């Protein structure tokens, strides 16, 4: 099995003494789903944002899809990674001045230099997969949060990425809208997409993930299979966190 992401000793500090990432190492293999959990401010968002170069780090090395980057943050290499890695954000971050279909075809046309018609055709296919092809001509502001997030997933898929990053994709949604997004993500996982997902959704993690990584204060506390993590977590702090999550 081919490793997609290999991180070695990633370290990032904001101010002296306060570390967003503290010696984080991990490996994600092709076709696997890694769920990252942890309390807020634990560095999980920072971690997955380093994987497509939205965040820099001070020490350690990172290998994404065979492209190695280090603390020098080489722009050209990061650009190469971004063309092959998709990302879905907590706040959707759709472009409000472009229609749904234009949001999706933007990157294929301007980054991959594909033909407009071809990109639109593929975009409609993706929207169909997400069950929102009827909204193609609308603008982001006219859609509900769940629909917007599915558009965001389709936009990330439009570049045919080899890895998808999800940064708390359901945290900004109304409770009754969460499942439509999670279902779309489940389908992607079944199709064999490699995914790294920051989320608090225990059900999703249990069903879909191959590994759960638990972080606190920038450190990896434990990495286990979901079975072990949710029934019999090794670490005291993980158990505490899970208890609190279940109370809510």
């Amino acid at each position, binding site marked *: 099995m081919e490793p997609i992401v290999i991180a070695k000793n990633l370290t990032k500090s904001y101010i002296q003494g306060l570390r967003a990432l503290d010696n984080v190492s991990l490996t994600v293999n092709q076709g696997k789903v890694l769920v990252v959990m942890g309390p807020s401010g634990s560095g999980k968002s920072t971690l997955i944002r380093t994987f*497509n170069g939205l965040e820099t780090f001070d020490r350690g090395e990172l290998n994404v899809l065979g492209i190695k980057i280090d603390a020098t943050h080489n722009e050209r290499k990061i*650009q190469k990674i971004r063309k092959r890695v998709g990302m879905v*954000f907590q706040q959707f971050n759709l472009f409000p001045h472009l229609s749904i279909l234009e949001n999706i075809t*933007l990157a294929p046309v301007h980054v991959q230099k594909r033909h407009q018609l071809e990109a639109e055709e593929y975009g409609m296919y993706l929207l169909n997969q997400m069950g929102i092809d009827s909204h193609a001509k609308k*603008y982001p502001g*006219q859609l509900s949060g769940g629909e917007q997030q599915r558009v965001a997933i389709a936009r990330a898929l439009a570049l045919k990425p080899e890895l998808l990053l999800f940064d708390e994709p359901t945290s900004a949604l109304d409770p009754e809208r969460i499942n439509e997004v999670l279902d779309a993500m489940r389908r992607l996982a079944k199709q064999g997409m490699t995914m790294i997902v920051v989320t608090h959704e225990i059900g999703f993690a249990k069903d879909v993930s191959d590994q759960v990584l638990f972080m606190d204060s920038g450190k990896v506390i434990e990495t286990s299979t979901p079975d072990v993590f949710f029934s019999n977590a090794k670490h005291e702090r993980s158990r505490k966190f899970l208890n609190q999550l279940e109370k809510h």
Partner: protein
Amino acid sequence: MKLYSIMIFFKKLKKNIFLNFFNTILSLVILLTTLLVCLNTFRWFIFNADWRVVTSNLSLYAFGSFPSDEQWRPAIWITSLLLLSIITLCGPCWKWIQQNLLLAWMSTIPLGLYLLYGGFGLSPIMSRHLGGLTLTILLTVCSSLLSLPFGIVLALGRQSSLPLIQKLSSIYIDVMRAIPLIAVLFFGQLLIPLFLPVGIEIDRVWRAIFAFTLFVSAYIAEDIRGGLQSIPNTQIEAAHSLGLNQYQIMQLIIIPQALRIALPALTNQAIGLFQNTSLMAILGLVELLGIGRSILANPEFIGQYIEVYVWLACVYWLVCTIMAILARHLEQTMTINQTNF
């Protein structure tokens, strides 16, 4: 049914106008004064005013001293602008019209320049023959069109991470915004010739357009900077994560959004510019106000200030109102599409 709605009307009237004793008195006083003012104005309009100063000079107000057998050219231009406004506002929603409106608006500028200056089959006309409303519109259209790209560049320059560019744009914008327009226009008329190499000359109209562009672009830059600053950083992150490069992000994500956010401010600038073209009357161009002044200097019409100024005020007010309605229409079509804006 009808009675009921009349009752509602009076109830509303009571609530809004005759709320309490003080308000009732106030309302009555206002009503009375308004009535008196309206009556007097009306009487003056019909009996006292001598409208020949307007009616016998209509072509002067519209076209200035444009050769009389060529006046159909500016007439066509102004009519096409008017027609286009009407079509934009209340034209049918046929798809091909909606799609080609922007193109039509853009093409009015080369059309206007061709019709006014001639060449290619039309007899050429010198700038000094331009005047009246035609000149006012020409100054407005050309200056606003030229100052938009310049303003965008300045706004981006002021946001730039390169300290030298940032400083230069900031100094330009701040200095321009500190000095009065008339000084800049004066600079355009008197000083630009001094800065040009010997032998090269630009005519007065284009010197004015140049000066207006220098001035307005500084204001436009600040409006656009406001738009740029209100675009959240997450938009840029999302664009980065899609692999777009710096220039693509600027061109596809940031500038279009900034322009849309700045749109109300920009249309206000255009309306302000239209009014400010009247300053050229002081500096010797016979645009709408200038032609009014030269008509007043004619012994035949001497002293008829009220008629001329009331007439000019009506024309300025009408054009400004049309511009404002067009601007609001534009804003609305944008917000219908994008509820987040």
